[in-house]
């Protein structure tokens, strides 16, 4: 996960002027298609730093854009898509005390002097930026607009005609952004703020050994890997034959690292280790006589058995440094099983999209002396439009973010009189 330079075969996030996102893999010598914005050669951006913005030429090669411009030719501030402007039914914009009312507002189509055909012709010959200029120049009433209205109009035309893109390195925040638009339920409606909160509360850092139950396809596990620098381990408890952490691939971790750090165990193994069947040990004689592929398989089974033995041992000896749950499974029984695996004073963070299951869990934990001060946190980020003179929170936003139950693993002392009440 080189964060500086785009590497061959990396997954990258492509930001487009339309504010849509694409996740693409940059396989050398391939052409990357970004919908109506065209296509470009992967090789043109491999080896370049992340964060530059490019314009797609007709020959599919790209030109880097002067850095202070970014995705849009105009200033890069956040304009609320849902806010109606002068051309809508909204009240007029105001800036610098001059009021532009929509008493005089006329519908856009009637004042645009360029015909659809003329615009199509322009698209064949001109760069996106020039088309936007032309369209604006041919707008009969552009000067009558307020500054805000002009900016919104220009932005709309840029979103339509600019053939720019910015390749971004994919971290967990970008993965969330991508899945929030695509399949939000798959990541349990996680937000960067809730994910970040969990990573902090659970004290995830290099060298720690953590347990996770992750129904987000690997997003939560990926966030932990981001913060562990290849040091420490993650025990992934899952409910299927094989764990599902497929979206980790987008994070471009070296395979060696994930193989080394991730340990997996399913619920049957966790609850009933005795049902795990012993590998029948084979003599060197027999092994020598085996086909090498079969022998390899045997050694892998033996190694896996040894790994499981180690994990069983660690689970029973309070080896772990943190527990994170992000699952739709009922957590009470999971906690009962996993709390003893945590060392004293280690942190628990449990995520759920709805609050009610966490309230029930919090009640259970309050009765359980092994977890101190269970608390449910609900963190939400609210975004603003910050266009000069038009500062306000976005009018609408997507639900999501869920709730995080936080607690600290403690060891009740037998010496302490039973009379002592919880505070």
């Amino acid at each position: 996960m080189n964060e500086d330079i785009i590497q061959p075969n990396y997954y990258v996030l492509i930001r487009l002027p339309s504010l849509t996102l694409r996740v693409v893999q940059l396989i050398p010598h391939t052409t990357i298609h970004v919908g109506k914005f065209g296509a470009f050669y992967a090789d043109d951006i491999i080896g370049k730093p992340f964060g530059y913005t490019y314009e797609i030429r007709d020959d599919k090669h790209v030109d880097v854009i002067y850095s202070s411009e970014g995705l849009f030719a105009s200033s890069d501030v956040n304009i609320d898509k849902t806010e109606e402007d002068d051309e809508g039914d909204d009240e007029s914009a105001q800036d610098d005390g001059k009021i532009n009312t929509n008493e005089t507002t006329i519908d856009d189509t009637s004042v645009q002097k360029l015909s659809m055909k003329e615009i199509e012709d322009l698209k064949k010959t001109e760069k996106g930026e020039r088309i936007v200029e032309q369209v604006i120049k041919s707008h009969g009433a552009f000067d009558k607009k307020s500054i805000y209205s002009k900016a919104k109009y220009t932005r709309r035309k840029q979103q339509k005609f600019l053939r720019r893109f910015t390749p971004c390195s994919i971290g967990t925040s970008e993965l969330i952004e991508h899945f929030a638009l695509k399949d939000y339920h798959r990541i349990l409606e996680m937000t960067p703020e809730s994910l970040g909160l969990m990573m902090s509360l659970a004290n995830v850092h290099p060298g720690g050994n953590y347990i996770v139950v992750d129904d987000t396809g690997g997003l939560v596990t990926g966030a932990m890997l981001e913060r562990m620098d290849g040091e420490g381990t993650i025990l992934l408890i899952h409910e299927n034959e094989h764990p599902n952490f497929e979206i980790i691939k987008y994070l471009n971790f070296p395979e060696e690292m994930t193989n080394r750090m991730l340990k997996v165990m399913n619920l049957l193994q966790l609850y009933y280790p005795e049902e795990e069947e012993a590998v029948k040990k084979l003599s060197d004689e027999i092994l020598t006589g085996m086909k090498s592929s079969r022998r390899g398989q045997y050694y892998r089974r033996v190694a896996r058995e040894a790994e499981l033995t180690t994990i069983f041992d660690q689970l029973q000896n309070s080896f772990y440094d943190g527990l994170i749950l992000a699952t739709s499974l009922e957590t009470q029984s999971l906690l009962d099983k996993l709390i003893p695996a945590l060392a004293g004073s280690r942190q628990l963070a449990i995520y759920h999209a709805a609050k009610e299951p966490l309230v029930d869990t919090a009640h259970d934990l309050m009765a359980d002396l092994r977890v101190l001060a269970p608390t449910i946190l609900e963190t939400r980020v609210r975004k603003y439009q910050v266009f000069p003179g038009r500062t306000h929170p976005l009018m609408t936003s997507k639900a999501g973010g869920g709730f995080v139950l936080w607690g600290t693993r403690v060891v009740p002392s037998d010496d302490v009189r039973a009379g002592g009440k919880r505070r």
Partner: protein
Amino acid sequence: QQTSHFLEFSTVIKENDLVLAWLTRDNTKPIRPIKDGAFHTRFGSFQHNTILASKYGTQIGSSSSTQAGFIHVLHPTPELWSLSLPHRTQIVYTPDASYIVQRLRIRPGTHVIEAGTGSASFTHAMARTVGVRGRIWTFEFHEQRFQLAAKELEEHGLASVVKATHGDVCKNGFTHSCGDTLDASAVFLDLPAPWEAIPHLTTVISKSKITRICCFSPCMEQVQRTIEILQKNGWLDIEMVEVSCKRWEAHKEMVRKPEDAIERLRDIKRRRMDGLNKRNARVDAERATLNLSADNADTDSATDTDRGKFKKANKSESPSSAEFNPWGKGKRIHEGEEGYEWKNVSKVEAELKTHTSYLTFAYLPPPMRVHEETINCD
């Protein structure tokens, strides 16, 4: 290199280790256990020797015979540490701090610039994340505050990760005495006038990768000026957000069924009728003595007598238990007490934090180089 409990986990408590003594939800005190020492609280006294014989996380009983209190001895984390700071102290609270770390992509190895240091609570959180491979240059212009923070960071074993400097970044830029190149890819400005510091960043941020910035300002007017200067200085994708975080407490609410209320009303009615009957009987008796007609006697006495019996059956246990009291009215009922029906509910803390600061984010691409290296795609 000194070890730090903020960077590494420890299981056993050693002499002079930093231990957070958890007294109540709102009261956590840092202590340094030493042989034969003691820690005195309103929940009793606690012997350091007992603490030193314990593992982190243990519940410790008080040694006072009169006060049967207890504490928990906790392993420090940046989050627990920030809870242990006095409330008046200026703190970047965990919901803001954790979002900023996530959003600025602070990771192990990241170089971060922070100004001002403040209580250094956020510095701790960032140090935990950047780890021994990372660096934080933190600047504080208030001398006393700087001294305090620098001392604390040293004591907490973070001096090798965090370089604290006393200085005014608005006037003098990010000048520091360590002599090393900052080359920071994450910048956090918690200053009254971030717009004065932003132009000084050019020389100290990364030459090879994207730099991300967060300006933390309580007032809207500060945000407006900050955005203006960010735009002027070429920062892109400027976005302003607020983080709000609610703390919910799990509670149990008594289920009060109308049926019980009705039974109670019946009970009250019975008692009243009973009283009336007794009075009538007394009046009758008086009247009998006075030889008057008994035409005012109650008409429904049969029914009332029956009810009276039922009431008496109830009453037989003790005089007060006779009253039908389904919800323990007048008694001191503990939440969740047996003998009543309860529903799990959640309530937000009584005093909500409704604002900390506005967070303005932006990024700056690395400067264009004339000779871009090329990677062989074959």
